[in-house]
């Protein structure tokens, strides 16, 4: 077998090279991952917080949410948001495909993030919560000013690996024809039969995307360190 990297400069038939197409596919991968991460962090944190409150109903909602979205495969969840929910609930019919994937990947990951956030809050000494309440803070204030600032710092490392997982999991979007990297890989492989070169390039792009996420997270972790505290500097 011989290499043929020229394949990336071939025309796809629509006036652009495979290289250009791959770059735009990379953009889609990053877009899907980025938007899903925002959804996952917002919803996941909320559900994680719910599960640590003294309010029974909120705990139940948080637990149910986590179990529901953790026990259905991501691909099936994407089909749910893409095929099932729009046909049951009409207003969702006109929205773009990207929406289905972002919601599916976001909610799927939120179940994992809620576990991490819950563990982070529970890792704090119980006295901190009582101290906050004893000072006359309301429960939301206790969370906002006492518990969450430390809990989020604790969970940065697991959240980092979840963020890297999101980049990897965004590959499942190929199933509903989002033109991201995996979809590009499958299509370009079929059209050019230069699968090895194309898969290598795509795999490499996944590598650097995940690596970049890792670096950014490390910078954030450094930035928010509290001296003398868990994981903090001197």
């Amino acid at each position, binding site marked *: 077998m011989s290499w043929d990297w020229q394949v990336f400069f071939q025309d796809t038939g629509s006036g652009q090279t495979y290289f250009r197409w791959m770059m735009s596919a990379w953009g889609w991968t990053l877009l899907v991952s980025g938007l899903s991460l925002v959804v996952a962090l917002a919803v996941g944190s909320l559900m994680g917080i719910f599960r640590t409150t003294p309010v029974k109903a909120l705990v139940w909602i948080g637990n149910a949410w986590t179990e529901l979205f953790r026990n259905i*495969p991501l*691909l099936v969840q994407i*089909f749910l948001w893409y095929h099932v929910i729009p046909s049951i609930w009409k207003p969702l019919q006109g929205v773009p495909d990207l929406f289905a994937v972002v919601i599916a990947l976001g909610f799927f990951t939120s179940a994992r993030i809620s576990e991490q956030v819950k563990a982070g809050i529970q890792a704090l000494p119980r006295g901190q919560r009582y101290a906050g309440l004893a000072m006359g803070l309301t429960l939301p204030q206790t969370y906002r000013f006492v518990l969450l600032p430390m809990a989020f710092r604790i969970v940065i490392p697991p959240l980092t690996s979840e963020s890297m997982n999101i980049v990897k999991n965004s590959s499942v979007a190929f199933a509903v024809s989002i033109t991201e990297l995996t979809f590009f890989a499958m299509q370009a*492989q079929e059209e050019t039969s230069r699968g090895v070169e194309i898969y290598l390039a795509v*795999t490499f792009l996944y590598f650097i995307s995940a690596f970049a996420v890792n670096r950014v997270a490390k910078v954030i972790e450094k930035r928010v360190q509290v001296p003398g505290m868990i994981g903090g500097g001197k």
Partner: protein
Amino acid sequence: MNLSFAFIDWNVISNFILKGFLFSIQLTLVAMVGGIAIGTLVALMRLSGKKWLVWPATIYVDGLRSIPLVMVILWFFLLIPLLIGRPLGAELSAMITFTVFEAAYYSEIMRAGIQSVPKGQVSAGYAVGMTYAQCMRFIVLPQAFRNMLPVLLTQTIILFQDTSLVYAVGAYDLLKGFEVAGKNFNRPVEMYLLAAVTYFVICFSLSMLVRKLQQKIAIIR
């Protein structure tokens, strides 16, 4: 739109869904057994302290863990025919892929398990004249395996969910069974919904069982 499940009878289930379900179970079991076996070997390599063993094992584990599973499935589906010179079929190819891929994840679990066994026990094994292999076989691995059993099983539930990704190469698994039935009866929405319910019921009950087991093991220790 009105959902209608009236078309579903035993024939639909046994003709379309059961076939896929059996493949998903088969794939999960093969990948679990093979993955834990290879994973344990890789973990031992990583902990051996010998550079020429540590390096390949590290590259294997970290490499696979940073690539999306769908890409790994596509890679194997592309490469295996190139290497053996004939197509292997999506099902067999998926079994090889999942075994190799899951081994990377199982090996990290086994590594943690092996490290959880106190060092003194290995020294004790050597002191009574056991070889390295005997130490591992009779002292370390049984305990590592037992300590990590809940985590290994949780990983297997994730593996079962991930088997749905063979969709990428068109293998006939549980999800595909629902999809084909949905297409045949022109009821795709109902079938996708049922697929979600089925996966949920299976995975949720399994994870409840694992939780029970975890409490049991925690009490014994």
